[in-house]
């Protein structure tokens, strides 16, 4: 009885922990092992070394996916942070209707990527969408067919992705700005610094941790991005807007390349880990230091 009482907390956590251990870490381990086998349609447990990884990196399709991820991630981060910083600073200037404006900036985060993709697919529709509108108001030669142009369709994913997530980045930066001591800004003003230089020289450098968080969030969002691509371009035209997440599911469930798909999943996992592990480490050390 005493033993039970003493160990009750452990007993309570144990089932959840076991579940996470099994379903998260056990499964990752399984995926990793399968990536080292010849598995095709069904898992095959015979060890095959790193052949799947070699195959993966020799595949032009995987290179397209990685290139697209690189394009997407870079533009996604740059645009979201640019928009987020500008809007948060502007909103921080004692705007009376701040609440309403913030609500409008952030509502896309409540939508699913499928809804966002559906909406933008219609707006960017090469014949009926924005192009037609431009024609009707007099720009007869205006052409906007990125959605169906190989090499350009990945940029439509950027457009929709930035639309959805930039408001959220704005909110993170706004929270960061609000946590900065007003005295610092007041003192700089007394010294005659202009508003612009106060922000670029004092405030933004103080927000380094916020930039870090924002980048980590955006990178891991973009590595995971799957729904938006599916809803907007479905990886097309052809395979021109494939991303690793799309590649993986197509190989696993469409092409019966379970081993190869596992290898690509492990590549994604490794990339996220490489970003998240140092981030968590530094975050938690900060928490420890604060104590």
């Amino acid at each position, binding site marked *: 009885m005493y033993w039970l009482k003493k160990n009750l907390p452990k007993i309570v956590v144990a089932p959840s922990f076991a579940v996470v251990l099994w379903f998260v870490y056990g499964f990752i381990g399984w995926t990793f092992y399968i990536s080292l086998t010849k598995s095709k349609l069904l898992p095959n447990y015979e060890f095959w070394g790193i052949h799947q990884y070699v195959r993966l990196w020799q595949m032009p399709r995987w290179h397209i996916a990685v290139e697209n991820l690189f394009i997407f991630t870079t533009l996604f981060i740059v645009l979201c942070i640019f928009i987020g910083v500008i809007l948060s600073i*502007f909103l921080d200037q004692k705007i009376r209707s701040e609440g309403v404006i913030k609500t409008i900036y952030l509502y896309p985060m409540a939508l*699913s990527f499928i*809804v966002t993709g559906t909406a933008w697919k219609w707006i960017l529709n090469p014949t009926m969408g924005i192009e037609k509108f431009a024609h009707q108001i007099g720009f007869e030669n205006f052409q906007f067919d990125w959605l169906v142009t190989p090499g350009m369709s990945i940029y439509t994913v950027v457009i929709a992705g930035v639309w959805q997530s930039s408001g959220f980045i704005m909110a993170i930066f706004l929270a960061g700005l609000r946590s900065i001591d007003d005295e610092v800004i007041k003192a700089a003003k007394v010294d005659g610094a202009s508003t612009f230089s106060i922000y670029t020289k004092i405030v933004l450098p103080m927000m380094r941790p916020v930039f870090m*968080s924002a980048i980590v969030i955006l990178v891991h969002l973009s590595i995971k991005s799957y729904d938006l691509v599916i809803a907007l371009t479905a990886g097309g035209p052809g395979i021109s807007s494939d991303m690793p997440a799309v590649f993986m599911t197509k190989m696993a469930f469409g092409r019966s390349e379970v081993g190869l798909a596992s290898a690509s999943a*492990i590549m*994604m996992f490794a990339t996220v880990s490489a970003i998240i592990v140092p981030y968590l480490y530094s975050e938690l050390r900060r928490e420890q230091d604060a104590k």
Partner: protein
Amino acid sequence: MLNKKKVSRIFLFLVLGIFVFYYITPLYVMVVTSLKTMNEIREGNLFSLPNSINFESWKIAWTGRGEGTSDVFLKPYFFNSLKIAIPALIISTFLGALNGYALTKWKFKGANLIFLLFLFGTFIPYQAILLPMARTLGISTFLGALNGYALTKWKFKGANLIFLLFLFGTFIPYQAILLPMARTLGLLGISNSPVGLILVHTVYGLGFTTLFFRNYYVSISDEIIKAAKVDGAGFFKIFFKILLPVSLPILVVTIIFQFTQIWNDFLFGVTFSFGENAPLQVALNNMVLTSASVKYYNVDMAAAIMAALPTLIIYVLAGNYFIKGLTAGSVKG
């Protein structure tokens, strides 16, 4: 000086206004498109207003045209999503609260490591667990196929009898097996069912819910807990009588976050379910992607709005809790 201030103020509002326009335009386009007839869509443009308010496409998106099998509409899938979201939400929230409590107020050796592993689990790309998860859910399907194969292609003594027993099994009233089934369900036989998706969302929501409650309970003073312990209150008594009553804010944040995650999920839905068991987002995507010769953009837009409405309403009603959840769920601080 005053003039310069005024100019910069105007510039400020201009930029903020342009972005209001930028964020709101897609929603505006969705709404007006959903209210137009196809003729109006062909004649007008993206932004033109409908001649009259016409909810016909909303009706079609919700209940279909009554054209039989090729007809995709959202109503049944809407309820599929609810059936998945609500149980998964309740289970993962409750477990998260309990874990958060145990990890912070009853510190034991390894509590921090366990928390760290939970936390890391919330970041993983789901692709890394997709295949094994599909396998776990698919075991019964797989076994079924294997059995069918063995029974037909590798005929052995008694194969026919076994097949008969399988066949008979499909006819029995389910009440006869309900109770023992509930006990043995475990991981088997829940592929392509709400139960399977409930399990998936519960399991992968656990990290988030534990994280939310853990971070909240860390900030609650240990003194109260110590006093209660001295008074002889046990683990569960303290949880239900002291912590849960003050957990309302984090409870709301967690519920909103989990609901939004599950409602908006596409990956799990599309991987672990198909046909009539699919959740709403999968149905919406199928609807938009139909290869039918005529595209009904108005119906697509009506369907998209419907799929977005529950989470949008929550956002409008409880925006602050929504944003708190998003921030906590991604910054993990």
